[in-house]
């Protein structure tokens, strides 16, 4: 029933969008389309980080160090990309390896040594902020070129046989053949013209949802975060599941950090600017499900994208005030939401085998 509710909201949103695309005047259509495209772009890193954190929290580990892991991933993606001649794929792998190491440290401290998860999480952030800033100052003089992931139209155009049917040549490369659809074509093109990672990422989030709720592994993850002792007595290795979740989440937060860098094509100090914490908020707002966290990320992303919307409409507002919006929305969403959802019973409780 709960999942149905999300589905209904999703369908309503789509119907409204379709109606706007069909019947609204051109300027509104264009503004909305670019707003949605922006929203998706901002939401994807949040959603991927949050999806990993869902697994981590479901297994009983609260990772407040997500921000730091994301930041580490961002820096090393930037460095990695330049090492591999601007290749984003290899670059992001370097970024993921760096956050994996961070996650390993975090996991060792909170799982094996049973340290306080909140304290260690915060320490990881401080460590990461100092570490990335220092390394950045050393390497910032490097000549770095960052290439973005290929766009969906470029990828589709290369598929033999149907590539030419799905895409059309355009002044700067290719564009989706969606433009040919009457009335709504441009509207859709703006929304769907994303890079390939957007499609892979969203698909992956739905896959993670499926794994969490339909597979044996997912059941174990959910059980371990509720009542680890009961899991132990049925022969589940609690430590293995928790380490697995922490490391997997580490990979995804690093990946999310990498996406930020590849999006703006450069690294700046503290580039994450609280996005790791917003991802933690998205986990709660999304009721501890990957798809829910994606929805929450769209809400938070929308709060940021609204800045561009306001600029586009020509409204004059102080930019500092505008920058506050996503954080304000996070606070309000959580304040209205916290306590209304089931929190994994063993969250933050270290497990000791007697």
């Amino acid at each position, binding site marked *: 029933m709960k999942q149905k509710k999300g589905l209904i909201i999703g369908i309503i949103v789509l119907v409204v969008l379709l109606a706007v695309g069909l019947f609204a005047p051109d300027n509104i259509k264009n503004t909305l389309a670019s707003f949605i495209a922006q929203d998706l772009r901002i939401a994807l890193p949040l959603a991927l980080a949050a999806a990993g954190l869902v697994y981590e929290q479901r297994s009983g580990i609260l990772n407040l160090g997500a921000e730091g892991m994301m930041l580490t991933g961002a820096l090393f993606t930037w460095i990695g990309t330049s090492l591999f001649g601007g290749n984003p794929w290899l670059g992001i792998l370097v970024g993921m390896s760096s956050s994996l190491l961070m996650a390993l440290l975090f996991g060792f401290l909170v799982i094996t040594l049973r340290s306080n998860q909140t304290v260690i999480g915060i320490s990881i952030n401080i460590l990461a902020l100092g570490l990335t800033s220092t390394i950045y100052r050393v390497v910032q003089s490097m000549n770095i070129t960052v290439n973005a992931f290929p766009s969906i139209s470029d990828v589709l155009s290369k598929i033999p046989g149907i590539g030419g049917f799905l895409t059309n040549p355009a002044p700067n490369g290719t564009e989706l053949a969606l433009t040919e659809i009457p009335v709504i074509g441009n509207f859709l093109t703006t929304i769907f013209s994303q890079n390939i990672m957007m499609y892979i990422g969203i698909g992956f989030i739905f896959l993670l949802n499926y794994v969490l709720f*339909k*597979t*044996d*592994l997912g*059941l*174990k993850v*959910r*059980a371990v975060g*509720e*009542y680890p*002792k*009961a*899991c*132990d*007595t*049925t*022969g*589940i290795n609690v430590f293995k599941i928790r380490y697995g979740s922490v490391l997997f989440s580490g990979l995804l937060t690093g990946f999310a950090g990498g996406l930020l860098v590849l999006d703006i094509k450069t690294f700046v100090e503290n580039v994450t600017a609280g996005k790791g914490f917003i991802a933690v908020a998205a986990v709660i707002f999304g009721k501890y499900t990957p798809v829910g966290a994606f929805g929450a990320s769209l809400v938070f992303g929308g709060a940021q994208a609204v800045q561009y919307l306001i600029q586009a409409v020509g409204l004059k507002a102080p930019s500092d005030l505008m920058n506050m919006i996503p954080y304000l929305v996070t606070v309000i969403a959580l304040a209205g939401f916290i306590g209304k959802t*089931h929190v*994994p*019973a063993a969250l933050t409780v270290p497990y000791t085998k*007697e």
Partner: protein
Amino acid sequence: MAPILEMKNIVKQFPGVLANDNVNLTVEKGSIHALMGENGAGKSTLMNILYGLYAPSSGQILFNGQEIQITSPKHAIEHGIGMVHQHFMLIPALSVIENVVLGRPENKKVLDLKNDAEAFVALGARYNMKIEPYELIADLTVGQQQRVEILKSIYRGAELLILDEPTAVLTPQEVTELFKIMNQLKEEGKTIIFISHKLKEVLTICDTITVLRLGKSQPSVPSAGTTREELAEMMVGRKVFLNVDKGPYKPGDSVLRMENVFTKGIHGALNDVSLDIRKGEIMGIAGVDGNGQDALIESITGLDKVTKGHIFIKGKDMTNSTPRDILEQKVSHIPADRHKRGMVSTMSIKENMILISYYKEPYQKFGFLNWKFIEEQSEEIVKRFKVKTPNIQELGGKLSGGNQQKMVLGRELSRDPDLCIAAHPVRGLDIGATEYVHECLVAERDKGNAVLLVSTELDEVLTLADRIAVMYEGRIMGILNKEDFDITRIGMMMAGQNQ
């Protein structure tokens, strides 16, 4: 018949404690075998060894005639040994069927819950249990959860089932249901080890009884022909008086009167509770755990806000007074959870003794504690209430459970209360300590004071109380006088059926 299980010369040495000292246990196939003993006698250690949670220091386990090594619960399950723990190993946030298949090695990567659900429902039907496989465990009653646990073990192939104090959480009717299932399992050739300290139940359901005392096993006895007194003596090592001697019932004036009390409650709410307790009587509160007993005590002691209604203590309206004001009306409180509310583990005995009175003279003068007086008093209470301790500087947490309870009891009763509220006063205590606590409570009553006794052990309430109020979901289902005490009737009321 051949024995299904033989545990031979099992020794388990913990640092400083010899928990199992050459224990021998032989269980016949297709029997119900009781394992009895006081707290700390080594029952749990022995069963944890059998279930693979502990490794024995030495000894031999034969299962179906073959020697086996059990190194983990997984191993035990593979051999066909299942265990229903006292605290269920079920995950409330998951559905019944998810709990059943959790951790099974034969699960496919993508779960096929539908198949398992059908098979599990069919299994339930065999034992007259209706199973809703997709319902959350959290939505089931305690009795239903226990039945799911038992079925889960059977479903996963258990031939030998260990039931750890299974009746502690059940109403009498649910106990009858459980015994029916146990007998059916026995008829089908399954073997059950029944851990309990309830003498009557063990004699009713079990075929053979093994008693552990101080880590050693006593020779097993058949339950036919054994009496309760003999069993108690085997457990304690001396004669025990199971019946409490009480003076005649002479109720006096009202000490505590509750009129239509409602609370919102942190631990469940109270719903229109009216109660009257008089001098010289023990009012027993019966009910399954979690049916408002905590809320009742919290409302009387001022720990929770009364939203509607009134509470009078000795005729004085004390509704929503502070806990200190209430205690000063000569009310004493022996809390259910002594570690949370009765004592401070990291403080010494003498400090624990003054937790309630430290601010009064002569305990303090001008803000300085009068240690000489406090120490004298503490020594006296320790002596009078037989708290076993090297000295009064010992930390409260270092005492055994029974002695901690005696310490709390001593502090509370030495304040000479008019009303004594005792919540689960013998929970976790062995027969010897239980006997002593009961004597003390009865002595209060015979002195002409009022006692409110909350307990989930129906036998305890039935023996001690002069009147019994039965609670269900925050309401009082009815108050019975001594001549109306009847297990069936009380059991129905505990299950929420109006009388």
